[in-house]
């Protein structure tokens, strides 16, 4: 039985990854999960300088999901390179580094520093507010997406996956822009913008007012977007959004994802990623699937 898949030249032993920002750099979860069993660890977004993030409350529960407005708090690329990547080094799992920035220069600064690191793949989060364009997110404008993808591809010696925001009218337009810019792959979806109001206090629950919706509530939207994008680009996709079981992971692969990331589900069960890996093997055995690659994009 073959469970391995290929992401832009990088072989994963299985398609199960962690979703950026829900798993840190794996340190905290390593007491619950054998990281060697995972296809890869996608680390929390890192920027060229430390970011303090937003005020609290930063998280709120919603029906079958949650809102978060962490604000991309991170210790900066220096600490990441000297502490987080060395922690991951001994594990036999792919190291996928998620990068964020407020300006093109910030993205490029972090990408350059990662060129000589042990990172296997870079995942570029373009759902960050672009301070130069008045705070609108990079990922909502196809022209900006193509431009930043090109700029990153110009300097990166690692495969580059662009991580798309679902908060757009036409996801395929953005995906095609990333492909035109030279992206080696596409990750989707990031969180959907949402809000929750405390009706007793007549105030937003999150200090940031709005936050990103994740968890099972967003899964049908994510599956639809993975499906649409897989039909219009030829680069590999990392699919995510509400995956909490092996069945969910298989659904994303059938929609067209080569690999999947598991995010919010880690908060309900810290062992869930490993359980999904073994659940996929069980599904393959029960359904006489010899090679997981058979099911990628099998849905017409």
């Amino acid at each position, binding site marked *: 039985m073959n469970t391995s898949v290929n992401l832009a030249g990088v072989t994963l032993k299985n398609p199960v990854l962690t979703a950026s920002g829900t798993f840190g750099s794996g340190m905290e979860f390593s007491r619950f999960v054998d990281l060697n069993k995972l296809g890869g660890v996608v680390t929390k977004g890192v920027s060229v300088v430390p970011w303090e993030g937003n005020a609290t409350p*930063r998280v709120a529960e919603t029906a079958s999901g949650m809102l978060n407005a962490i604000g991309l708090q991170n210790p900066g690329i220096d600490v990441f390179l000297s502490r987080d990547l060395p922690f991951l080094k001994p594990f036999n799992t792919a190291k996928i580094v998620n990068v964020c920035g407020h300006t093109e220069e910030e993205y490029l600064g972090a990408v350059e520093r990662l060129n000589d690191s042990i990172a296997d793949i870079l995942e570029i989060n373009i759902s960050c507010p672009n301070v130069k364009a008045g705070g609108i997110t990079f990922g909502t404008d196809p022209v900006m997406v193509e431009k930043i993808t090109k700029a990153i591809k110009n300097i990166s010696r690692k495969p580059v996956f662009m991580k798309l925001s679902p908060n757009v009218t036409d996801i395929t337009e953005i995906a095609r822009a990333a492909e035109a810019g030279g992206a080696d792959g596409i990750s989707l979806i990031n969180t959907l913008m949402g809000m929750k109001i405390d009706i007793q206090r007549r105030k937003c629950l999150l200090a940031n007012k709005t936050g990103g919706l994740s968890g099972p509530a967003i899964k049908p939207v994510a599956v639809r977007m993975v499906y649409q994008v897989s039909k219009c680009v030829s680069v590999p996709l990392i699919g995510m959004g509400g995956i909490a079981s092996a069945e969910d992971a298989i659904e994303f692969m059938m929609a067209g994802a080569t690999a999947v990331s598991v995010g919010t589900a880690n908060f309900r069960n810290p062992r869930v990623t490993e359980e999904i890996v073994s659940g996929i093997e069980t599904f393959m055995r029960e359904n006489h699937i010899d090679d997981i690659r058979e099911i990628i994009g099998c849905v017409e």
Partner: protein
Amino acid sequence: MEYKKAHVVSVNEIAPSIYDMLLKAPTISAQAKPGQFICLYSNDSAHLLPRPISICEVFGEHVRLVFRIAGYGTRELSAKKTGDEVTVLGPIGNGYPEIPKDKTVTVVGGGIGIPPMLYLARKLYENGNELNIVLGYRDAGLFLKDAFAGYGKIFVATDDGSVGFHGNVVGLIEAEKLPVETVCACGPMPMLKGLSAYTEANGGTAFISLEERMACGIGACLGCITKTKETDGHSHVRNARICTEGPVFDSKVLDFTGGKR
């Protein structure tokens, strides 16, 4: 720390909307330190985040929790029956620091911040510390008060003045001139702020337990931070994780202005 199913031994309402739950959780009870907490998960996967609840006491293989119904999760817990299972993660957090036995400690609990002070008070008493125990309640529903008997001198303040001192715990401490060289506290944020200011102004040290909404409970999501005056060693920004560096902090390291200095 472990993630596991625990068995419910008993659940009782001890004051209006306040429940006392005993869980059989041997690993947690063996490891638990005063001030630590556990996360409990709803059976309904539509409610996916953990509910953090302080460890109120441990007896042998059992962990005692005392909680107030605040919403879906705590209501579900209050309806558990003997023998039911509940998924738990813990023990979590740093807990209160060890305090030399020659020190007199003022232990302060406000409202639903009282439960964790019970285990702490017993441990300090067993350690040989002299204790002043200050309990702040809304009204005459003095839940858990009698459980503190024997551990030290007990003082009660009520918001409505129905029992004991009429006012808040800081007012009581001032009126009674209780020592604040070492203070351990848990309760609502305004109480903790006032108590920290009073303690620091009198040259003492206040170890206070903070609350925040949590997602992972293990230090990975950065959902539960509190602002600190100096750069924190893990985050490399002025944020400490309440679930990992906390929930107990020396008030002097905290930035109560929320970083808006």
